[in-house]
């Protein structure tokens, strides 16, 4: 498709989407409703024009858009109703882009279009009880048996597992190698025999997060993503996209056209019975942080697109977006006074979700370690287990 102007994009989108008005509010990631239909019908509506994932190839549900054209579409999309795409975020923002880098063409043909159209939902089976920040410590094992792999082990904190058709799953295929080397990435159908999901309740009462137990599940070799032993590299691509926030396009809380104030400030004004100088200061600080953060992320995203993969800049983007979310939920909850502690209070869910923002997708500390080492070139963390076979290093403290 040739590049359209904002006016032309708006005209196209008007044919398939509703305009958003200032009152449309977002739900909180993962603490919203269980309704998959709204997101699904939005994606089904936009997939033919390639509007939701414009940079993807046209045959896979995109429109081969350049970075600048993609940004233009993103801006216009903000004027329309885009539902909460939380259930679809792993596929759209992380697995899709990673498949474009590491998937073979058969895999791209099989998986990308259903992701873009909302037909299939993906989850991310990386973390395990003993592998959180130390992701390379995963123990879930996959052993080759002809054209199949026999998979067994446990994952945890798997968001969206109960909705998912597929998981992107990091497995240990060679315990004799040092921990980063013996890993391989697979796509795992959640309906496979031997896959069992147990919901975990979060403190914000969200139950979209689970433990997944895998016992003797048989995974086809054609579902392997990337080479054997290359799982860590694929995982890093997935995580870089997660951090850069690729999954969160849509429903953006930015300024809709003609609307001077972001909706969160409009809401805050309604809550504040006294708009003191101290309060204004906090609002303005947050607004300024958001604006600079958005521009910086945009620049990092453009760089990532021209270089093909997001770099450590995504870690900075993640830290900034966490700060925005936390600052906003804190201010909303404080402004709403005693009522804010009630179930129907403003900022109630956000306050109980806020701590997780600095944990999911890699903790703040881990993001800062990445920035320190890879951007600033500071000395690396001591890595005692780097060259030790995983089967030895996992046995105890070293």
């Amino acid at each position, binding site marked *: 498709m040739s590049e359209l102007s904002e006016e032309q994009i708006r005209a196209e989108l008007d044919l398939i989407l509703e305009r958003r008005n200032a009152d449309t509010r977002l739900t909180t990631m993962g603490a919203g409703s269980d309704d998959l239909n709204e997101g699904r019908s939005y994606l089904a509506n936009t997939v033919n024009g390639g509007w939701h994932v414009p940079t993807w190839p046209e045959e896979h549900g995109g429109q081969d858009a350049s970075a600048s054209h993609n940004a233009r579409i993103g801006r216009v999309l903000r004027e329309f109703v885009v539902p909460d795409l939380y259930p679809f975020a792993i596929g759209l923002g992380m697995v899709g882009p990673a498949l474009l880098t590491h998937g073979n063409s058969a895999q791209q043909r099989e998986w990308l279009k259903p992701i873009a159209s909302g037909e299939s939902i993906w989850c991310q089976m990386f973390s395990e009880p003993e592998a959180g920040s130390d992701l390379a410590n995963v123990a879930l094992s996959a052993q080759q048996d002809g054209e199949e792999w026999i998979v067994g082990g446990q994952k945890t*904190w798997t968001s969206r597992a109960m909705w998912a058709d597929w998981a992107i799953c990091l497995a240990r295929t060679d315990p004799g190698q040092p921990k980063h080397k013996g890993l391989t990435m697979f796509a795992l159908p959640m309906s496979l025999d031997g896959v069992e999901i147990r919901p975990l309740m979060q403190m914000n009462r969200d139950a979209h997060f689970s433990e997944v137990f895998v016992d003797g599940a048989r995974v086809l070799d054609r579902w392997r993503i990337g080479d054997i032993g290359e799982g860590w590299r694929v995982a890093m691509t997935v995580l870089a996209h997660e951090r850069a926030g690729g999954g969160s396009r849509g429903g953006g809380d930015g300024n809709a056209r003609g609307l001077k104030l972001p909706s969160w400030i409009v809401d805050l004004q309604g809550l504040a019975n006294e708009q003191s100088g101290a309060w204004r200061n906090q609002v303005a600080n947050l607004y300024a942080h958001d604006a600079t953060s958005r521009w910086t992320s945009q620049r990092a995203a453009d760089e990532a697109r021209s270089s093909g993969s997001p770099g450590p800049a995504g870690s900075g983007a993640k830290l900034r977006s966490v700060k925005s979310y936390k600052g906003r939920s804190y201010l909303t909850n*404080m402004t709403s*006074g005693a009522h804010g502690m*009630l179930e129907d209070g403003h900022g*109630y869910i956000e306050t109980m979700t806020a*701590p997780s923002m600095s944990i999911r997708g890699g903790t703040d500390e881990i993001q*800062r370690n990445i920035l320190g080492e890879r951007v600033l070139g500071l000395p690396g963390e001591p890595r005692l*287990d780097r060259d030790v076979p995983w089967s030895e290093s996992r046995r105890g403290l070293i």
Partner: protein
Amino acid sequence: MTDPVHVDPLVTETADRLFSEICGHEAVQLAETRGEAPEIWNAFADTGFPWVSIDEAAGGSGGSLLDALEVLRVVGYHAAPIPAAETGILGGWLLASSGQELPAGIVTVVPNGGSELRGSVSGDELTVSGRALRVPWARVAERIVVPLEVDGQTVVASIDVEDCHVEPMTNMAGEPRDTVDFDEVHVPVAPTESGIDLEAFRFRGALSRAALMAGAIEKMSQLTVSYTNDRVQFGRPVAKFQAVQQHLVWGAQDAALARMVAETAAREANRGAAQFEIAAAKLIANQAAARATKACHQAHGAMGMTQEYPLHHLSRRLWSWRKEYGGDAEWTKWLGKVAVSQGADQLYPLITGGSANFN
């Protein structure tokens, strides 16, 4: 009577032993699902703890306010899902100081702020109407205590819960904070002793929350130290990472700070005038709660976000208590006004001497 300046160590020991036995993680979780915890309440009531600091002559258990606040600190430490403050140093105190009977069961009290209640006196009858918001545990209370200002005097209505309409609502911690409607409820007029008015009640409420918060922050800090010493990543306990140690230090500092200000306020309140100390204690507890919950959650990683692990029982209570009986803005403003009204020369004496030094 125990020595009024010191907490009877037996109080701490007995309360702590009681809750250690009956108020573990599952019990607190269950109370949240059911909206009540009768077993915990009954065991607590059997010891007489709810009525510590209320004169035996008035039907209380005796003991000092210091003892009562120590019990509350232990309640907070164990995240015990019971209306301990409401039945004792708030509701029980209001009843005793207006010469009314203490019921045997749970008492709650309409907290200050937000509610729209009207009282009118005719002869020796008081009529109460309107809506009360965020009433702790109203649904399981026997009586609801309502302090009111009517015709320039403070009166205390002791209302049978059967005589009002209770709409369940919960706070962040999953504890009942119900909406209660009173439709022309008639009770005898019961004026308070002099000096006990709505302002005194508001400060006493803040004092109760400061004690609960000090306990909860302390437990949260201890949990975090022990979890991070057990949790191994990258081949070592995460407590060995300096970034994590920084969180641990914040948690421990805030626990010490909150306990110190709560105890200072308790001691002064036990002696007499303590408005300055109470205002400072609640504000500092609020701020400590915000910092400590942030640090302790961060050090726990995803484990702290799950209901299966007990951190949230403490953090969610702290976020709620922070908003009761005065949020940060309210107490900051109060303290600022007092400081300004005393004048520049009196600032230092105010800080060092506290309530005893201002007029």
